[in-house]
């Protein structure tokens, strides 16, 4: 009986694992300067962009894949990956804005509305979405509405064509192409992603979002997102992602950069749900991502919120460089690992300006045979007077075959700094579960309640419709993990 229920859970585990049958325009496998030129040519890029790529590639060739994370996996063979794959429409489309019906179906199945007329179920405000399918952005909604406010929201490729001065100025500012192995790789081969610029004094009238979907097999996904909030601007940005269920591992190495000017604020929320592999640990996405924001000027704020439930291996540290005085960095994270998933995730808060503040709330949940690590750096540079940080890292264990680890690094070069760190490890208690059951709540619902309660501080930071999604996802990810 118990086994049957477990089976059922595991089988329905990843409901986004389907494959869209669509012809693709692909680059040959492998990585060399010709491939990079191929990608650049496909995108009709200006010379400076190609130069940026080639420089990054030459750097990357001299770099080694990092091994310090608490994860183990077979390193990808970078010559065995397809670096460009674009869905090829079955027929000539009437306009560039038209989307292949096969793709429309895919996104409808994923619950993503790329039809501006249609509101997402039960959601009051609309959300503008940039949809990235494998290597290309297939559709960006609400562009015109946003343009009226002077907001630029488009695919990265379009931004390179239409706003080269902005791309040139900001790209690589938060994540230089030499930053790390995967960032360098991304800088060389990135194919698309989202670009967003909020002009001075504008608060975005709606939430902006990117939805990433890996479909083709044997491909890697290397997208870049660049968000710039000019003086007094505000935007809340959402990111979601899924991928088909496949036996081989697929690489996702993205870069996200955020730049805030004076008094500006960017809130970036992610619900990461890449395919995690099967219950034996076969397949799944390698999620090696560099996300960093820079509070360039005074009184600005960058806030990262992430709910990480997917991927076979996660290596991800959304960070904030607090350069402007009085700037604020936040990191709120829930990372769930089940079965054989591995996550090494956390943040870096680099305090450079005076009176800078940062908050780190990390909630790790490990189940099955998984490993879940928090890794965080709080760095207070000399001259960053009155900097403050508060960190809280909690781990919740479900069962006794999984692992939870905390690696906090603190470097203080200014005496006036106040840095607090709290950490707890707890187990989901049989007592809690029995208490719930005695009130008529079954095991599954009880786990959902307890886990959502445990993550509440983080879930509260998510926009409403995202929070509901995240709660469901948490429950699904942990199904069959206790009792």
């Amino acid at each position, binding site marked *: 009986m118990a086994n049957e229920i477990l089976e059922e859970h595991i089988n329905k585990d990843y409901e986004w694992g389907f494959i869209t049958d669509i012809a693709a325009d692909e680059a040959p496998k492998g990585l060399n300067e010709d491939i990079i030129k191929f990608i650049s040519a496909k995108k009709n890029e200006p010379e400076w962009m190609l130069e940026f790529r080639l420089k990054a590639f030459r750097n990357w060739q001299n770099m080694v894949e990092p091994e310090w994370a608490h994860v183990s996996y077979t390193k990808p063979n970078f010559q065995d990956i397809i670096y460009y794959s674009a869905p090829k429409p079955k027929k000539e489309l009437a306009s560039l804005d038209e989307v292949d019906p096969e793709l429309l179906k895919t996104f409808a199945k994923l619950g993503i509305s790329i039809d501006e007329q249609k509101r997402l179920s039960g959601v009051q405000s609309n959300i503008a979405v940039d949809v990235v399918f494998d290597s290309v952005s297939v559709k960006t909604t609400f562009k015109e509405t946003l343009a009226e406010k002077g907001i630029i929201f488009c695919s990265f490729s379009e931004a390179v064509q239409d706003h080269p001065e902005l791309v040139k100025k900001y790209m690589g500012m938060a994540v230089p192409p030499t930053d790390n192995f995967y960032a360098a790789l991304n800088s060389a081969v990135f194919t698309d992603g989202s670009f967003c610029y909020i002009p001075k004094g504008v608060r975005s009238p709606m939430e902006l979002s990117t939805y990433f979907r890996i479909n083709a097999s044997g491909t890697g996904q290397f997208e870049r997102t660049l968000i710039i909030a000019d003086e007094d601007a505000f935007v809340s940005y959402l990111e979601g992602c899924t991928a088909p269920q496949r036996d081989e591992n697929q690489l996702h190495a993205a870069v996200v950069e955020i730049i805030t000017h004076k008094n500006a604020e960017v809130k970036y929320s992610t619900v990461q749900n890449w395919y995690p592999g099967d219950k034996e640990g076969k397949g799944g996405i390698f999620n090696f991502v560099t996300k960093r924001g820079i509070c360039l000027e005074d009184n600005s704020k960058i806030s990262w919120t992430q709910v990480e439930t997917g991927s076979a291996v996660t290596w991800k540290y959304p960070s904030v460089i607090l350069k402007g005085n009085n700037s604020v960095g936040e990191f709120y994270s829930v990372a769930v690992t089940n079965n054989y998933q591995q996550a090494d995730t956390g943040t870096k808060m680099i305090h450079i300006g005076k009176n800078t503040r940062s908050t780190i709330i990390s909630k790790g949940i490990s189940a099955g045979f998984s490993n879940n690590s928090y890794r965080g750096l709080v760095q207070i540079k000399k001259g960053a007077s009155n900097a403050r940080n508060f960190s809280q890292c909690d781990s919740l264990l479900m069962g006794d075959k999984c692992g939870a680890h905390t690696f906090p690094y603190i470097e203080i070069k200014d005496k006036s700094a106040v840095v607090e760190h709290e950490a707890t490890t707890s187990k989901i208690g049989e007592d809690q579960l*029995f208490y719930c059951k005695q009130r008529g*709540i079954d095991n599954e619902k009880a786990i959902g309640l307890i886990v959502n309660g445990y993550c509440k501080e983080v879930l509260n930071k998510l926009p409403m419709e995202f929070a509901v999604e995240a709660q469901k996802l948490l429950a699904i990810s942990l199904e069959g993990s206790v009792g």
Partner: protein
Amino acid sequence: MITIKNLHASIGDKEILRGINLEVKAGEVHAIMGPNGSGKSTLSSVLAGREDYDVTEGEVTFNGKNLLDLPAEDRAREGLFLAFQYPVEIPGVSNINFLRTALNEIRAYHGQEEMPAKDFLALVKEKSKLVELDSKLASRSVNEGFSGGEKKRNEIFQMAMLNPKLAILDETDSGLDIDALRIVATGVNKLKSKDNATIVITHYQRLLDYIVPDFVHILYKGRIVKSGGKELALEMEAKGYDEIKAQFDSLES
């Protein structure tokens, strides 16, 4: 309501319940008393369906159903409520959300629709008054940071919300000052009807001044060794358990 026949339960190789027989009818209040470690909490846990214990012998019928066949959540849904001796904290889950989930799960089991939010809130208001529960506690996380007395009061509040057929109160009086005791007892008495029943577990007679039992049973070493009316509680209070202990310990050896 509930009929317990020759119930044996153990944990590991340790037999804790060694042949319990008890019948509780609708409208009745039974008190179970006994020294520490005699198996009172074990009995309530076994009835509520805690899986740590192995039931090795015996049967329990609850409203015509074989109770021991049901998973814990279904026993609750059938109307069995346990006010825990040590209520559990669930951080981040508000009392309200917890109870709404519980109530709707129970309703779903009986084929009823979810209770509309408005009715639910009205019910919360009504029932929290009954146990004089501070309305702030209703929106706080389940038992988190509650004082001992608040936790016990919260148990009775939950009982009032879920309206069970059979309530087992496991030492609800311990940790309560005399005022809180009176409030809790008044609450329990108000919830009493001819259609439900209560089992009050305690080892002090004090509570029974307020919740007057129809029957009193003395549990010792996993057996009910003596039963009687409410005067038995007074007798135990006066004499202590030593006589009973001596009598049954000598029988054992």
